[in-house]
Structure formats: structure tokens, C-alpha cells
């Protein structure tokens, strides 16, 4: 039992619930930023490879995940003055219940896999899975395009959690490439968001249902 890690991870789980509950975009973004920061410091706390390179990389991650990405999305909102609701398909209370449910489910599922470095923490794998599924949940349950992008970011956080902490042999250059990819992805999504806003002067994806069959 590794107190600091588990406290941090439980914070992450909490952030999931917050994100499900929050009805306003700025709040959601703040939650995501917070989540990004925590997720990126986990490796340090678990504390394998405390090399300079590792630390540098962690800082880079922290800046990108915790600051750059949320910031650029926040700016995107500012720029195009989008209405601030996340326009839920599934209501907030239902979402919260679903969040609790999927956390439990994640714990159950994680028991099927015996994690190699479960020495690090028992909560690690469940949290990762929970983040992943929660991200997809946001993607499915929010009509607002920006909320969907945020869901995608949450997924990425989950994967990052799995990656950096489980696999020992992470080459930083490679991970950095991944990070850049994610960043570029979010950038492009932000651009598309602005275009959507200009074209439909709304980011409600209900408008994006013309192409079918």
C-alpha cells in the first residue's frame, strides 16, 4: 500500500466524477487541466527512473497536459464565444451514477489482469481503465463538440497513465512523439471547432448529422 500514489489516484477518480457532474464548459476544462497535472506527476511519485531525462520529460508532459492543451481549448471558447453548456444527452445525475458504476466496473475488470507493477499501487490499473471509459462516456453522452474533445483528452490521460507507469522500457523520445501527436490532434480539433462555429454558429454536434448511409 503506497499512500501518496493512492491518494493522488483517488483524486483522479474524483475528477472523473466532477467532470461528469459539471454542466459548464469552463468548469469541465478546469477539471481536465487538474487531471492532466496529476496524471503527469504520477510517474514521479511512483518513482522509477528518476533520471534527469525522466524528470525533464515529466515536466514537459505536465506543461502540455496541464496547461497548454486546456489553455488552447479555453482560448478556442473565448475566441468564438460559444454557449457554455455541455448539452448532455445523458443527464447529470444519471452521468454521476454511471461514473460510480464504471469506476466499480473498472476495479472489477482490473482484477482479471495481474498487473506487473501492482507493487506500485492497487488503484493504478482501475484508475486508468476508469479514465479511458469515462473519456468515451463523455464522447458519447455530450452533444457539445468541445465536451467531446475534452472526453478525448481524458482518454489520452488514461492511456498515458497505463503507459508511463506500467511499461518500464519507455523511451522518452518516443513518448514525446506521442505527446506531440496528441497535442497536434487537439490543436486540429480546436481549429475544426472554430470552423464549425463559423459555419453553423454553434458547436452542437446535433447539427452534424447530415451524412448518413
Amino acid at each position, binding site marked *: 500500500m503506497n499512500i501518496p500514489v493512492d491518494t493522488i489516484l483517488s483524486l483522479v477518480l474524483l475528477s472523473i466524477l466532477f467532470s461528469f457532474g459539471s454542466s459548464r464548459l469552463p468548469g469541465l476544462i478546469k477539471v481536465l487541466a487538474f487531471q492532466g497535472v496529476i496524471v503527469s506527476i504520477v510517474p514521479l511519485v511512483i518513482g522509477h527512473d528518476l533520471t534527469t531525462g525522466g524528470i525533464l520529460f515529466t515536466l514537459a508532459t505536465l506543461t502540455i497536459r496541464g496547461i497548454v492543451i486546456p489553455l488552447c481549448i479555453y482560448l478556442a471558447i473565448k475566441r468564438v464565444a460559444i454557449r457554455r453548456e455541455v448539452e448532455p444527452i445523458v443527464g447529470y445525475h444519471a452521468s454521476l451514477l454511471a461514473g460510480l458504476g464504471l469506476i466499480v466496473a473498472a476495479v472489477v475488470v482490473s482484477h482479471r489482469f495481474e498487473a506487473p507493477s501492482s507493487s506500485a499501487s492497487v488503484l493504478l490499473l482501475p484508475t486508468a481503465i476508469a479514465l479511458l471509459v469515462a473519456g468515451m462516456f463523455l464522447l458519447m453522452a455530450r452533444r457539445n463538440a468541445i465536451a467531446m474533445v475534452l472526453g478525448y483528452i481524458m482518454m*489520452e490521460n488514461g492511456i498515458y497513465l497505463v503507459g508511463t507507469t506500467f*511499461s518500464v522500457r519507455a523511451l522518452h523520445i*518516443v513518448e514525446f512523439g506521442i505527446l506531440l501527436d496528441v497535442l497536434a490532434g487537439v490543436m486540429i480539433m480546436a481549429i475544426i471547432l472554430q470552423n464549425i462555429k463559423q459555419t453553423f454558429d454553434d458547436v452542437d454536434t446535433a447539427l452534424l448529422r447530415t451524412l448518413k448511409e
Partner: protein
Amino acid sequence: MVEIVFLAPFVTGVIAFFVPRSLGRPLLVLTGALHLLLSILLWIRQPEPLFKAYFAVTPEGMLSLLVISLLFFLISIYTVAYLQESDIKAENIFTGSMLLFLSTMTMVTLSDHIMVMWIAIEATTLASAPLIYTHRTGASLEATWKYVLICSVGIALALLGSVLITISMDVGQVDAPVSFSALTSVATQLDPLWLKAGFAFILVGYGTKMGLAPMHTWLPDAHSEAPSPASALLSGVLLNCAYLGIFKTNKIMQAAGLGDFSGMILMGFGLVSILAAGTFILKQTEYKRLLAYSSIENMGIIAFGTGVGGLGAYGAMLCLIHHSLIKSSLFLTSGNILLGYGSRLIDKTGNLVNLMPKTFVAFFSGFAAISGLPPFGIFIGELFVVMGAFKAGHYAGATVLVVSLCVIFAGFANQAMKISFNSSEAAISLKERASLVLPQYVLLATSLILCFWIPDTLYRTIMNAVTSVTGGF
């Protein structure tokens, strides 16, 4: 010095963003030619890469690379003519993204490190997104949005899958570079549970990109909204790149003795894709979407063949090559039709045989080729896939395959005949310049020749690629 092959188009691509169209178009063609030259050199010399940890020259990679550069060269020639006919705002972005797209795809074919492969494939998504949004319409925007989001989500899962595979190394206490080649050699020591999980995620992830149902949903929108040269690239090459990732992972599974598991899953997804394609081909109203769904169908056949293994895998490889050649030619042809009739609806077209005879030849032989009729290569590919399936004893699967092939043919033939022979009042302004039809002819001719004679080196390369998944014919 392998890396130059994808660095060169990267550089020119970046340049292309900042040059006027007068320079951009020749740059496109020149890069295409240069790339073709480089990859042929690569084929002959088989040099060592600089960063061995990340890149390697594998037979399957070489195959895809050759196909890519041939296609891109021809498509670039067509593109120039196409751009003259149609007006595209911000053409430099289009050209630049084409080149970047090329470079990222080349990177996919050469990458050997799992993560690098992932980076490259994600990069292809980002590079091709602007291509789909070229027309700046609401529909194209929607298509782009779906493309980027769905593919990103899918590929995120692929990333997770790659991570899981590295975990399987940790669990199995294997110490080897995280590259496909290395993993294949030590596959037996990997922990099967995590490996399976990894394969599952990678299949779904790259499968999203490859257009396997039910993750195919972005494909028809993107292909129909993108300008035809881009669609040709997407359908002819991008799907192969995604398939490459699955293929290599499947190699690991085979080596790890989990071939049955992966084969079953591949066959399942293959059949589902074929059925899904059939569903929408039957009553399709737009010809570009029709072609897109037919790509899904062919990807399904390829996945099925790979899952079958043996003769089936060989057939799948043939299908892969020929599908790239033929489908890209079909998309270029659809570009002509769009320029001629000015509508993507099948009902608005008709009497192609008289109005655009040259295009008709390309179109109808393309249709015959894609539906597996000789003398084009997909025929032999499908033949081998079916026979291999029966050889491997997958009677049920093969039956479903054959039946759905019948249905799809019925649907496709109906639409193709409407376009070609139905009476139409449309007035065609387009003049069929050589550069608007020759690329298609060359592609079809290549497929025709490859149906009867495969150069020995090519054959050996295919065999090397397949042998790992081959239980002997």
C-alpha cells in the same frame, strides 16, 4: 539512409505551404517522381536505416511503399489536371497536406518500433484532415470532424494496445527492443494474456483506420467529401498503412502461437465488414460513397484472408495490392464523373459510355476489376482467399463470404450499369484530356499485368511477407 524517403516529401510539403500554386503543382509532381525513384532505389539496394531501433525495411513495408509511391506519382499527375478543372481555395494547403500525407504514410511503411508506427499512423490522420476539408463546405466539415474524432479515439485505443504489448514483455520478463521484428523473434516468451489484450486493442484501433466494421463509420463520409485525388490516396494507400499495423501485430500473434485466436478475430471482423458494405452498396445513391463502401468490403476480404492464413493470406496480399491500384483508379475516374456531371448522385449521371467514352472505359473496367472479374488481379486474390478458407476448413465463413460477394455484386453492378448506360440529358463540359484518364489506364494495366505475371523479386517479397502467416498451401 532509409529515412530520406519520408523526410524528402516532408520538407517539400512544408515548403509547399508557402509557395503559390504556379510552383505548388510542379512541386507535387516532382516530389512524386523523386519519391518513386527513391523507393525503387530502396527496393533494389535494401540499405540499412540510420535509427535501427525505430525503422526497418520489411518485405510487407517494401510492398506497401512501392504501391504508395507508384500511386502517388500517378495521382499527382492527375491532381494537376484536376486542379486546373476545379477551383479550390487555399490550394497551397491542399498541396502541402498531400505531401505531408505522403511522408507520414511512407513513415508508416518503414517504421518498425511499435510506438513509432503509432505516431506515424496518428500523423497520417492529422495530415489528411485538411485534405478532406478542402471544399470548405458544411458537409466536408462534418466529414472532417467525424474523421478526426473517430480515428483519434480509435487510434488512442491502438496506443493502449501497444502499451499493453510492452506490458506483456514486462510480465514475460523479456528484454528486447520494442520493435515488431524483435518481438516476433521473442514472441513465445511474451505473456499471452496481455498480448491478446494488446492485439484486441490494436485491431480495434488500427481497424478503425483501416475501415473494418463496425468502426468504419467515418470512411464513407471522408471518402465522399474529399476531392477525388485525396479520396484515391485515402482509399488506395491509407487503408493499407493501417492494415500494415494489424498485419505486423498478427505476425507476432502467429509467432506466439496465438494464430488461431487472432485469425478468428480477423475473420470475424472481415465478415462483418463485408456484410456492412453489402448493406449500403445495395441501395447506394452516391457513387463516391459506393466506392467507399466497396473499399470497406475489400478490406473485409483482406482481413478475412489474413485470418485464414496459408493460401488465403497470399490471396489477401494480392487483394491488398490490386485493391490499391484499382480503387484509386476508380476514385480518379469518379473525379472525372464529378467534373463532368457536377453531381455526386447516381441518378444525375448516366450514358457515360457516350458522353465520356474514355472515362467509361476506365470506370467500367475498374468496376469489373473491383468485383473480382478477370483479367484483373482481384479475381485471383478472391479466388485464393475462398479456396484457402475451404482448405483451412472454415466452411461457414467461406459460405458467408461467397454469398455476400454475390449480393454486393448485384448491388454494385446495378449502380455501375445505371451510371454507364442509363439515358441522361446531362450536358458534359469536361474535355477528357490525356492526363485525366491515362493515370487510371496505367493503374488498371498494372493490375492486369500483375494478374498474369508477377516479377520474381515482387513474388519473393510477397512470399517473405506471407510465410510467417502461411501454413503452407
